[in-house]
């Protein structure tokens, strides 16, 4: 097997890895780099549990080849908190009790952060459509949407 050498940046840190040509970014994050925050719910781009950003763009890391991260900036849920200071979105998800099992939450957080970076003042409908690619089977989305709207308001105020 010919492994590919990749130099990239993950959550602000320089990272190098070797990957196989068919390996996904999600595989490498989880298996090679032990960044298990991103989850594999489907492996086919349908659940959003593996959401990360690639140069600021929201992607399903199960649909990105690990080799494609060469020279890019990747952020994952592990990069959201600033040391022991949680991101407002993380805080709001907790305060609103917007998680039950929590498996969807890393993806929801990464996707919501991308939403608020692009649309700091989203309508509820906009938030619902933006998060339509992130499946949550436990909550019915109600508290998640409330948490995201509340975080948006607080971030605008801050």
């Amino acid at each position, binding site marked *: *097997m010919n492994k590919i050498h990749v130099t990239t940046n993950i959550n602000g840190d320089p990272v190098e890895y070797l990957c*196989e040509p*068919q390996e996904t970014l999600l595989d490498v994050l*989880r*298996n090679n780099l*032990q*960044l*298990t*925050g*991103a*989850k*594999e*719910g*489907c*492996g*086919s781009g*349908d*659940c959003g*549990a593996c959401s990360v950003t690639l140069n600021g763009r929201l992607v399903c890391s199960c649909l990105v080849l690990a080799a494609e991260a060469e020279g890019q900036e990747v952020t*994952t*849920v*592990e990069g*959201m*908190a600033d040391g022991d200071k*949680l991101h407002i979105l*993380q805080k709001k*998800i*907790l*305060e*609103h*009790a917007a*998680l*039950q*099992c*929590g*498996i*969807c*939450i*890393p993806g929801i*957080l990464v996707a919501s952060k991308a939403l608020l970076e692009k649309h700091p003042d989203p309508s509820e*409908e906009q*938030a*619902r*459509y933006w*998060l*339509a*690619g*992130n*499946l*949550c*089977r*436990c*909550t*019915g*989305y*109600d*508290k*998640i*949407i409330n948490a995201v709207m509340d975080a948006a308001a607080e971030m605008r105020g801050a």
Partner: protein
Amino acid sequence: MALDTEKREFKILGTRPLRPDGVDKVTGRALYGADMSAPGMLTGKILRSPHAHARIISIDTSAAEALQGVKAVVTANDFAKASNSFMQDGLDNCMARGKVLYHGHAVAGVAAVSEAIAKQALKLIAVEYEVLPHVTEILDAIKPDAPVLHPDRNFKRLPEGTAANISHTTDFGHGDVEAGFAAADLIVERTFKTEATHQGYIEPHACLASMGPDGKADLWCCTQGHYNVRGMCADYLGMNISQLRVTASEIGGGFGGKTTVFIEPVALALSRKAGKPVKIVMTRDEVFKASGPTLSSLTDVKIGMTKDGKITAGYAMLRYQCGAFPSGTIDLGAMSAFAAYDLDAVHTEGFNVMTNRPREAAYRAPGAPTAVYPVEAVVDELCLELGLDPIDVRLLNAADEGTKASYGPTFEAIGLKATLEAAKAHPHYSAPLGPNQGRGVSAGFWFNFGGNTSVSLSLNDDGTVAVTEGNPDIGGSRASISMMAAEELGIPYENIRTIVADTNSLGFNDVTDGSRVTFAVGLATIEAARAAIKIMCTRVAKIWDIDPEAVTWEDGYAKPAGENAGKYDPMSLAEIAAIANKTGGPIAGHHEVNADGAGVSFGVHLADIEVDPETGFTKVLRYTVFQDAGKAVHPSYVEGQMQGGAVQGIGWALNEEYIYGEDGRLQNAGFLDYRIPVASDLPPIDTVILEIPNPGHPYGVRGVGETPIVPPLAAVSNGVSRAIGKRMSALPMSPPKILKVIKG
């Protein structure tokens, strides 16, 4: 254990503290099934049947075994004979023995040094099949000449003349049903169909097994019940239970689907053979093909009503398709169907029928949604025909304290009437509707379980407390358990840490199912706290040199009581804990119980639906859930259960179904084609919690998790039916199906 007679002002119950596992879950630190690894770990993969029904003539694994990097291959021959037929079914579902019974049924497992090699090895396993005729639909499976799944097992041919695929029959009721129908002014009789759905947890099944040459093993897995996993796996591997320790990972949803084993025994068998740890993670395709799903159903319902809304009799014939192995969910369906009604004459009967589909697994209130849906739809139709208000009619006929339930027992204090009244008084119920819109009402019911539970609670010498329980926390139960411990001990919630122990660290616990955890583990926690309090009071009595009976516990302090009142300064839990070594040693309380008194649960849902008459497309405009939660320990997580259950039910009603081809193969094994509700499909889900104390719990707590999935099927169906002016009688109500009914 009964409700405390002394009424108390709760200090912590009813508040909404942050959950103890929350930070881990928003930072990615929490470890779920697939997040664990071990040094030298191998990747396990499973070969699955391409056929719906076939005899296995031979399996040749030699080429796979010879492939470099392959460390073990297992088939059914690598497992022990299970201890009884129910257990054997569980094993045969994990690994086909002699026959494959459904598309996706496991045939062999391999463990290799990489996923790529494991996949390559699967291709090298040569299985020779003799393909057999298959059957996937209820009516086909009961035909006298239908293919029989287990011809060697003498299953029933009931009702008379059906094929021997009937695994279970049921019959409940009381009163003279025929006389009841004769007294009715209107009788509606209809047949309803539901399709199989999947629990749809976002986390696929995953496990990591490690067995040494000494036969001692450790298993890490996502499960709703690790003690159950231990029992099943030990049986299947011919192990002594004490040799297997199971640790439950954080669990990414289960809804009943993770109450049994699928890949865990296979990983253990591979690890035993390879002498190395083996990790197996299902793909989503495997999750759909070989885990879950729920039943599909075909139900006839007949209800008679007087013109002022009194139900004179109810009858239901339920047929539940349960996949490739026996199931008894028909009992739960037949018991739930009319549970919301106080009836003089009621009769429910039915059967489970086996087909070439994956084995039915429990799904949130198993058996109930598909039984309550047809009844609630017929009640709605009667109300419409007779010009009666659907909530008034339900109130007139509602089960109440003292009602003899259609399935036998007499109800204790229940909240159905209060819930119906709350729905009637809510602004949602009187809000105006526009054109092509309809409002559906449905009640729903679930039994709630108690069951075997062990809890241990120990004081740390700084006055904080460790609570050890054994039920995987699927939606915030560590928070509610900590809250109940804090309430009882009179110390801050933050001073308690509750963990879920592995199977070796605590006594037996039943599976996290039946909405039992907050009720039963809560009850055991309160009792464990009371045991610790008793010890603390004894220690303090010793210090004060008074009778232990003369010491009471109040708000976290031991206080002298009776004639000694005021004589000594109260001692806090922290003070007592700090000197425990001088007063007799560590202080702990524990409680083991097979809890009963779970207290049944009722809910009422309102659904406003708009239907586009051109396309049949539906939109849920507004949705409100009313439910009796008993005492709501952490209201946010109670609401979350109500919302989540409602949305799963909405998915069942509108989108979700298993679709089989003529070839008996599953056509939609992925989230693209099996569409669960997404955020943009839904309105906010409003909730109203009613708190009618459960007489069987010291704080009045009842389970809340399952009831919310029961009413949505009928609430949505009734909403659609009222919007289009015609009665829908099959789920899911996809646009083409609705259009067909509109066009008549």
